[in-house]
């Protein structure tokens, strides 16, 4: 009897404990979520204030009056449209070239036999480990001598032929049974036909991953455009924003408004496709 009561007691204690733990878990999660979101909230809040209100004491999270005119003011101060157009052009071109050429090359590496296959592939793998920062200078010298300095093409060729894309696609193609290719060959498909009609449709998931990461990576790239693009007509949104910050360093409210604008496109892409982001990282896990 006493034993039973004790057990019951322990049960009650354990369930209250688990409720407390669960509550604690939510408290910690919500606190961390706030910590993660606060810069974005502050950014939006500051972008709707007057510059002297930005650092008011105590801080006001919700502006007294919403100064929406900040957002119309910035369009006359910064050539945002040009920046967006340049960034979109680069990002789309890079994503297209990168995805097309690396899936093309990856098919040969995964499914065709030819002399020098291993040597060539080792070249790719070896450069994945080499940080771009160690060869950005010789690359710059080369591009300058080719007349690509201060053109959008510099960033396009810089980003389009990464070893990472080939590596990722090859890994995926290796998982596709070779028998499929052989059956197609017997049916009279050429190698190009096999790539287009069998490999591409089967590798949608890998291509989605590559497309998203290339697009977002190129959109957010800062160091490349900073080195190569000097004239305002060529600037991307990242270096354009940086220029605006340097030239209007105390217009906090306007800087924040431009920042919010610069974040919007990628945020939309991310929210729409986040499933693929998560899957991409979980399956490949690599992109340093």
């Amino acid at each position, binding site marked *: 009897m006493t034993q039973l009561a004790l057990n019951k007691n322990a049960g009650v204690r354990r369930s209250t404990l688990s409720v407390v733990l669960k509550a604690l878990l939510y408290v910690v999660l919500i606190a961390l979520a706030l910590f993660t979101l606060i810069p974005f909230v502050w950014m939006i809040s500051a972008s709707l204030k007057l510059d002297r209100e930005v650092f008011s004491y105590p801080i006001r999270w919700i502006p007294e009056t919403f100064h929406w005119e900040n957002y119309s003011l910035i369009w006359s101060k910064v050539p945002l449209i040009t920046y967006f157009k340049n960034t979109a052009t680069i990002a789309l071109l890079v994503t297209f070239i990168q995805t097309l050429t690396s899936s093309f090359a990856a098919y040969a590496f995964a499914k065709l036999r030819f002399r020098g296959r291993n040597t060539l592939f080792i070249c790719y793998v070896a450069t994945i480990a080499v940080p771009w920062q*160690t060869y950005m200078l010789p690359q710059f010298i080369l591009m300058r001598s080719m007349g690509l300095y201060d053109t959008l093409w510099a960033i396009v060729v810089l980003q389009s032929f990464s070893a990472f894309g080939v590596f990722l696609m090859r890994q995926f193609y290796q998982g596709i049974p070779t028998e499929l290719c052989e059956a197609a060959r017997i049916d009279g498909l050429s190698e190009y036909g096999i790539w287009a009609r069998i490999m591409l449709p089967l590798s949608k998931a890998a291509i989605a991953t590559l497309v998203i990461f290339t697009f977002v990576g190129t959109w957010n790239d800062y160091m490349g455009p900073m080195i190569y693009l000097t004239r305002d007509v060529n600037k991307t949104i990242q270096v354009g924003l940086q220029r605006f910050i340097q030239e209007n360093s105390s217009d906090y409210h306007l800087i924040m408004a431009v920042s919010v604008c610069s974040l919007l496109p990628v945020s939309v892409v991310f929210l729409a496709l986040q499933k693929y982001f998560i899957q991409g990282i979980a399956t490949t896990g690599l992109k340093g």
Partner: protein
Amino acid sequence: MAQTDNRLLKRRKTRYERKKELVAYSFIAPNFIGFAVFTLLPVLFSIFLSFVKWKGGAFSTMEWVGLGNYAEIFKTAKVAEKGLGYLFTKVDLGIALKNTLFYTLITVPLTLICAVALALALNRAVKGAVGFRTVFFFPYVASMVAICVCWRFMMMKDGPINQLIMAVGINYNKSWTADSAMAIWSIILVSVWRNMGYYMVIYLAALQGVPQDLYEAATMDGANKWQQFCHVTLPQLSPTTFFASTMLIISCFKIYDVVKIMTEGGPGRATKMLVTYIYDEAFSNFNYGIASAIAMVLLVIVLIFTLIQFSMEDKYANN
């Protein structure tokens, strides 16, 4: 007769084989040409550049100096005279190495601890798990310039962060990024904030792979939640932790964007990092040889970690 047949067959076969090889090369070529010109060639060129003195003018102004650039960045003569302490307190390279190492040593464990904690929390039946996951991952896709400038403003003298810590009772009212003691911490904070969501996703994937029967066995043996965490979850996660930490170490050694936007390497040399040093020598001072020699130091460090990762990958794969 049979012999000629054979020979004919052979010749036809080689022609067929050659055609097959050409097809294969045509697949590789579009990517490989771009890759060879814009990546492979520069990589080799950068090794060469580290042995010459060059200000970037005509190629004829290049001057072979052997290990001269390395002697220059390590200030070998001075260091030999005054000891190793001189390297890490006075020499640019030593300071950049020290700062980068300090940044890495703090950022890596902090990021991984936050990532594991978040992954463990979200791996349970939590309401709104997808929403939380989205929130934590979002900083990773947000562009650096916007978020770094926002953090810099928030850490200003009268900014919200100082207001918060004053409210807690800590008396501090300087701009973090202008204070040589705090500047590197501001960079660490932003880095952890940005990367923890990414590694959380990796850990979440790893947690799904932990066999459920291990927990059942542990429960049967009377292990409580904490013991299960220490003796089941952590060991099962150790390959992931290993790969995540080498990846993170390598990316920490390449830190640039955050530093450039938040502190420009300052105040003084307080946040000078390896890559900021390379950038300054290459694109501000036009010391192409020196910049390439520093780049080689970075390359060697990154290669060491990559090799460790490769060898451990074999070990884990064999187990």
